[in-house]
């Protein structure tokens, strides 16, 4: 992805090699182990084939290898996140268990949050280094440390690393993650993934390390994690949870080491990583095996297993010794080097005392825990070493069933732990040169200078050795009094889960608040939106500048000085009528009257427009006003009486919110008024386009009427889209009312069989007898019928004239369409629904709309055939030399007007038809 400055790059150095070998090596062993772990006796759930497990495991292995091999921070991050995701999937492997889901979610939440911080931190470092290349960032260390963003970067990256490596106070996801199948826990949550954070810190040490912040942050966090993990671990009753806490403790130690600034610390780091991976991997697999064989992992129920599982016990003992830090195992070496390095701290103040002391304590606790794992499980009887306050769960049936056929694990399952345990032993006793070199390489690349690593067990009696001895003594003592220690710890509540839950709860409460705002009341919505609009307009609209503008005052002055002509009087009265009528329509309670008032306001506006003078627009305004009034009244007739009365009653007692709404409406109106005033007063405006239209309307479009020319020619495309809007509205009303009714009708018919059918027959008989009556069965007089009959051809003629000559004179396709629709509306009123439908069967709305839109498209495309551009005006009559009467031009404009007329007619009929349908027909 060079365009974002990153690329997919991998590189191998000492550190990656160490991690890579651990990942692939343990990965292979785990895969072998898992093959037996999931073998026949583990009951699998529906749809949860083990294939899924191996898919996730291999995906994870790829991701983890990618993380340690990445040579580019983005590549690193991508793989880093992939490990989080695969870990999520593995923890929740048994999806039907609530604990699995919760554990998985917890892990994802914590590591996901860390991942986002890490991304930000890495991007900052890349931006400051002008590259996402890891080696360039690492070499840019001096500049990064000097940067003002140093602390931000460090905090972000450390947050990412700490969450991943389960450092305090983010450690709590790791014990919860133990609901994963044991092979996954062994691999991800002890040997590899949790070390990714430590890996990252070690990797970035040359870039960010060796500052005071680095030292203090990593030392303190690492140390507290080490202690807390070790202490809480002792309290656990679940074998895996205990191992998880000891892992946390170990990770804390590693983090603490990364914080130091001495070569020996890095030696201790690499030995610690290897040792921990070896013994903890083995112990986890043993724990899984014990679970497998006995059906429980509860330490209170396990005991005396050495007889039944001797081989398993042997492996557990070796791994446990390494964990305890006893010679001659690698764990001993790890603890030795840890203590040595801490005795030579970077900052030789108080840390020189505190850190070794903490490590000795942690070491002692580690020994106790190792003893619990190896001895309590296999040697002592069940329940030994637990005080009374640890209530033993009643032995479940499941457990007792398993009990009598406990046997040693199959060799395949033991193979992997044996190899790991043996390695812990072999590395120290045989001291292969190759391992020492590997570790030295890893430590050197991390530290940036040469670090010597030897794997000799014994040098001389020195301080670290003495301290080690102290740790062993204390640990043994603690194991002897483990019952008392547990009793003390039992009352010590130290849980970050509470905080985690509090954060999630707080989020949920905030979320509830947000969704409560959406209370469904459109009035509230509009209120908030209009207030926001008003605020924005006042804040950014620079209203004072507008108000102080001389144009406003001048226009006021001219208006006051001007003479009063009759037109002015007419205009003033029309304006007063418009304003008064719209006010009345708001205030008045009766709905029908409000509609009439509203319509008269519209007509007054038509008068104003006519006085402008633009008769064309005035005609459209008037005719649309009438049509909408008719539609509104028809719609009103369909609302049940009692509902209308209810709505009217609501308006009787204006509430407080009504008053606020009125105030807001006035505020908005005031702004609109100001703007309109300015806009009108600043006329004659500097129009670029109007002169062009005026000059070219007649010669180019053949229309003397500039409005007509704009609507049909210059901006005809707008009109095309508008008629689509009109057609869509008609289709919409039809679909909504008719099809929804049909749907309701169908469901009702199937619901209540015959009686309904009889009812319908009755009704249709009634309708037939009313064939001669108008709307709602009211009889109409012969005279009215005659007028109505005459109105139809008249309106058609009028429409025709308007279309043909509308280009020059007032009137157009739109007016034509509305005129015919009005006549149709009259028929509905006079002849009733049934007869109108019968007699005007030719007026099929969908056809009218479809054909209308097609005509526009065809007529606008046709000029292309004649070499003219799309949508350009074209006179077919002239081009084809047709003998046409004077004043009648067969042009694209005419076709356009016709199309508009058809669409408008179609939509209006849709609406009239739906609203005019007698109410009993759709019930």
């Amino acid at each position, binding site marked *: *992805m*060079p*365009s*974002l*400055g990153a690329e997919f790059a991998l590189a191998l150095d000492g550190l990656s090699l160490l991690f890579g070998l651990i990942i692939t090596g343990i990965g292979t062993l785990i895969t072998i182990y898992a093959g037996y772990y999931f073998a026949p006796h583990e009951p699998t759930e529906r749809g949860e084939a083990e294939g899924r497990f191996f898919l996730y495991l291999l995906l994870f292995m790829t991701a983890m290898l990618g993380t340690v091999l990445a040579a580019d921070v*983005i590549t690193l*991050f*991508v793989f880093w996140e992939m490990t*989080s995701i695969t870990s999520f999937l593995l923890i929740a492997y048994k*999806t039907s268990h609530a604990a699995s*889901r919760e554990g998985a*979610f917890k892990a994802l*939440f914590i590591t996901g949050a860390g991942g*986002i911080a890490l*991304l*930000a931190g890495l*991007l900052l470092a890349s*931006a*400051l280094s002008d590259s996402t290349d890891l080696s360039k960032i690492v070499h840019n260390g001096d500049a990064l440390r000097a940067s003002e963003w140093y602390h931000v970067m460090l905090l972000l990256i450390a947050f990412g690393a700490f969450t991943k490596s389960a450092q305090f106070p983010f450690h709590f996801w790791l014990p919860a993650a133990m609901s994963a199948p044991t092979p996954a826990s062994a691999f991800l949550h002890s040997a590899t993934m949790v070390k990714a954070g430590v890996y990252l810190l070690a990797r970035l040490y040359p870039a960010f390390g060796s500052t005071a912040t680095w030292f203090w942050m990593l030392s303190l966090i690492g140390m507290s994690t080490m202690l807390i993990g070790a202490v809480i671990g002792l309290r656990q009753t679940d074998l895996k949870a205990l191992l998880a806490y000891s892992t946390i403790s170990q990770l804390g130690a590693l983090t603490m080491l990364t914080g130091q600034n001495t070569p020996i610390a890095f030696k201790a780091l690499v030995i610690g990583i290897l040792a921990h991976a070896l013994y903890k991997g083995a112990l986890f697999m043993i724990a899984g095996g014990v679970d497998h064989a006995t059906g429980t992992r509860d330490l209170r129920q396990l005991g005396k297993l050495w007889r039944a599982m001797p081989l398993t016990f042997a492996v557990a003992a070796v791994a446990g010794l390494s964990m305890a830090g006893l010679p001659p195992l690698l764990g001993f070496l790890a603890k030795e080097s840890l203590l040595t390095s801490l005795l030579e701290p970077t900052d030789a103040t108080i840390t020189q005392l505190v850190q070794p002391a903490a490590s000795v304590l942690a070491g002692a606790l580690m020994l106790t825990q190792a003893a619990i794992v190896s001895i309590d499980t296999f040697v002592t009887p069940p329940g030994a070493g637990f005080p009374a306050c640890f209530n033993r769960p009643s032995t479940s049936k499941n457990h007792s069933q398993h009990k009598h056929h406990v046997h040693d694990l199959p060799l395949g399952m033991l193979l992997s732990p044996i190899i790991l345990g043996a390695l812990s032993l072999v590395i120290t006793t045989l001291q292969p040169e190759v391992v020492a070199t590997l570790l030295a390489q890893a430590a050197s690349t991390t530290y940036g200078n040469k670090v010597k690593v030897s794997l000799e067990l014994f040098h001389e009696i020195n301080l670290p050795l003495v301290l080690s001895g102290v740790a062993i003594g204390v640990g043994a003592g603690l194991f002897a009094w483990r019952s008392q220690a547990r009793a003390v710890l039992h009352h010590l509540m130290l849980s970050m889960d509470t905080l985690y839950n509090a954060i999630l709860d707080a*989020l*949920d409460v*905030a*979320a509830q608040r*947000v*969704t409560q705002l959406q209370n469904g009341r459109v009035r509230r*919505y*509009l209120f*908030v939106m209009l207030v926001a609009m008003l605020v*924005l307009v006042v804040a*950014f*609209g620079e209203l004072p500048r507008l108000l102080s503008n001389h144009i406003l005052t001048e226009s006021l002055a001219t208006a006051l000085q001007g003479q009063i002509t009759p037109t002015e009087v007419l205009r003033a009265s029309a304006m007063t009528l418009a304003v008064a009528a719209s006010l009345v329509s708001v205030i008045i309670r009766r709905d029908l009257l409000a509609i009439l008032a509203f319509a008269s306001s519209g007509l007054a506006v038509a008068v104003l427009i006519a006085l402008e003078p633009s008769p064309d627009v005035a005609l459209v305004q008037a005719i649309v006003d009438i049509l909408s009034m008719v539609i509104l009244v028809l719609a009103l007739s369909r609302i049940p009486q009692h509902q209308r009365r209810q709505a009217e009653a609501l308006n009787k007692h204006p509430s407080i919110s009504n008053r606020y709404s009125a105030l807001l409406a006035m505020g908005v109106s005031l702004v609109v008024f100001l*703007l309109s005033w*300015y806009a009108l007063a*600043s006329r004659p405006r*500097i*129009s*670029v386009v109007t002169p062009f239209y005026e000059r*070219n309307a007649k010669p180019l479009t053949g229309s003397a009427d500039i409005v007509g020319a704009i609507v049909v020619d210059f*901006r005809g495309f*707008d009109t095309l*889209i*508008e008629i689509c*809007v009109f057609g*869509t*509205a008609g*289709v919409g009303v039809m*679909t*909504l009312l008719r*099809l929804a009714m049909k749907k309701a009708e169908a469901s009702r018919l199937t619901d209540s069989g015959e009686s309904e059918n009889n009812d319908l027959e009755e009704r249709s008989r009634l309708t037939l007898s009313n064939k001669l009556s108008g709307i709602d069965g009211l009889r109409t007089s012969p005279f009215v019928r005659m007028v109505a009959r005459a109105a139809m051809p008249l309106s058609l003629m009028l429409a025709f004239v308007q279309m043909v000559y509308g280009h020059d004179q007032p009137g157009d396709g739109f007016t034509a369409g509305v005129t015919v629709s009005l006549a149709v509306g009259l028929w509905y009123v006079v002849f009733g629904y049934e007869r109108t439908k019968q007699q005007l069967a030719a007026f099929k709305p*969908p*056809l009218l*709309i479809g*054909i*209308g*839109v*097609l005509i526009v*498209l065809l007529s*606008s495309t046709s000029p292309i055939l004649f070499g003219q*551009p*799309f949508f350009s005006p074209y006179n077919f009559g002239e081009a084809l030399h047709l003998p046409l009467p004077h004043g009648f031009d067969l042009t694209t404009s005419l076709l356009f007007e016709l199309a508009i007329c058809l669409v408008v007619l179609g939509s209006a009929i849709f609406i009239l038809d739906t609203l005019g349908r007698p109410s009993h027909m759709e019930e």
Partner: protein
Amino acid sequence: MGDVVIILPFLLPIAGAAVGMLLRRWHRLRAGWSLVVLALACAVTATVFWQVAQSGQARTFQMGGWPSPFGITIVADALSVTMALMSQVVFVFGFVYALGAKDKAVHYETFHPLFLMLAAGLTGGMLTGDIFNLFVMIELVVISGTVLTAISDDRFGTEAAYKYFLISLIASFTLLFGIGSLYVSYGTLNMADLAQRISANPEQPLLPIALILLSITFMIKSAAVPFHFWQPDFHTASPTPVSAMLSSVVVKLGVYGFMRLTTLLAPSATWIKDLLIVTGIVGVIFGGLGALGTHNVKRMFAYSTLAQVGFIYIGVGWGTSLSLAAAVLFTINHAIIKSAMLMLSGYLASRAPVKTASFSVVRGVGRYAPLSGVLFFLGGMALAGLPPSNGFISKWALFWSGVVAATSGAIQDRWTYWLPLGLVGISSVITLVYVFRALMRIWWEPFEPPSPEEKVKPRGDSLLAPAGLVTLCVLLGLLGQPLTDWTQRVSEWMTQPGKYVQAVLQAEETHRRNFSVQP
């Protein structure tokens, strides 16, 4: 006369809709015809896109041959054609989903024409170079969106549509007033012409008013807090194939409007950018929390759109070349992700015992639909911005642009970068929480209906369309290079508004017809 091809992306659907009205009795024929039309429109858009990308030149068309600024100009520049292609592609997938959906609404004889009209209005709005024509196109979007939602099977459909329509009327009013103010001040409606005249004379008293009114319109259109109230109801209640379009591409019309407003019409009005950053921040947090707090999967994704649009706002608000590219990338990727996720929610509703996407009903339903779980998981990763998905690339690009600007920018402006970055980070965590919580609730928790008669339906909507979209998410995540490169070229176009203006006004010179009276 220009390239008549570039008007086909919206003219074809209009013609298709008109013919569709005539084919009302033949459902299968109408469905097939509409699909062919949409696919054809998409192919044409892709061709235009390819040509624009290859030549590096904008293509324009003057409606009726009237020279700009007197006639209506259609402009296919890098930004508009990218947006149009995005919309068309998502619309084709949406239509495929509709074909396999079990909703009653999709079987109405008017559904297909209405769907095509929605596509036409949206694409037209993106391709038009005339601000009044934009208004008309938005009207078409509003009316078809309203109707499509009103006829939904969901019993709240009509109510939601009513609210949307009412609020859209306000948007129409502000837009019309804004356009009017611009026309009063500059006497032209052509966007290129306007851009030129505004930069020549930015002291017109009505200009700030016009700009804020346009901003309000675009905020309503893209559902920015506090103008978002219509959105959660509307996107939840509408039929799934429609809802997947509304929440993914239709909201982007407002985003596109802001992109044009801040880069073409008034690049000098920096306050719009500040406003965008602030609104974006509010949206990011508000939308995230809203998604967390809902009890319905579809609604959750509707809220999530508020947050995701907030991310884009922030990118547009920063206005650097990198952040604009990130915003465009985010826009495209979110369109793909969100449509897929809404389709998956609709699929679940169609499988649930009662047709709803409410958590209480769909809990555990996923146990019977493992494939949809895989799709949801991958799509959820994309939405949460986890690699390797296109969602990660857009989040990365946005973070990167902010970090670069923060480390290189002036000190007093820094808060405008790190504050949004921090909140975007927090919101990303919230996204993680709600997406994966939903995953666990629906696919992992056991199915426990209140009564044993309630069973998961054996068949639901077709998964073809969401599967295709999720595949696209993954592909764009793994092979994101070409798209990322392209968005950077788009942002180069955007930072040089002169290129757009020149393309339109040059077209005037070359395409001017032989007028008897010269302007």
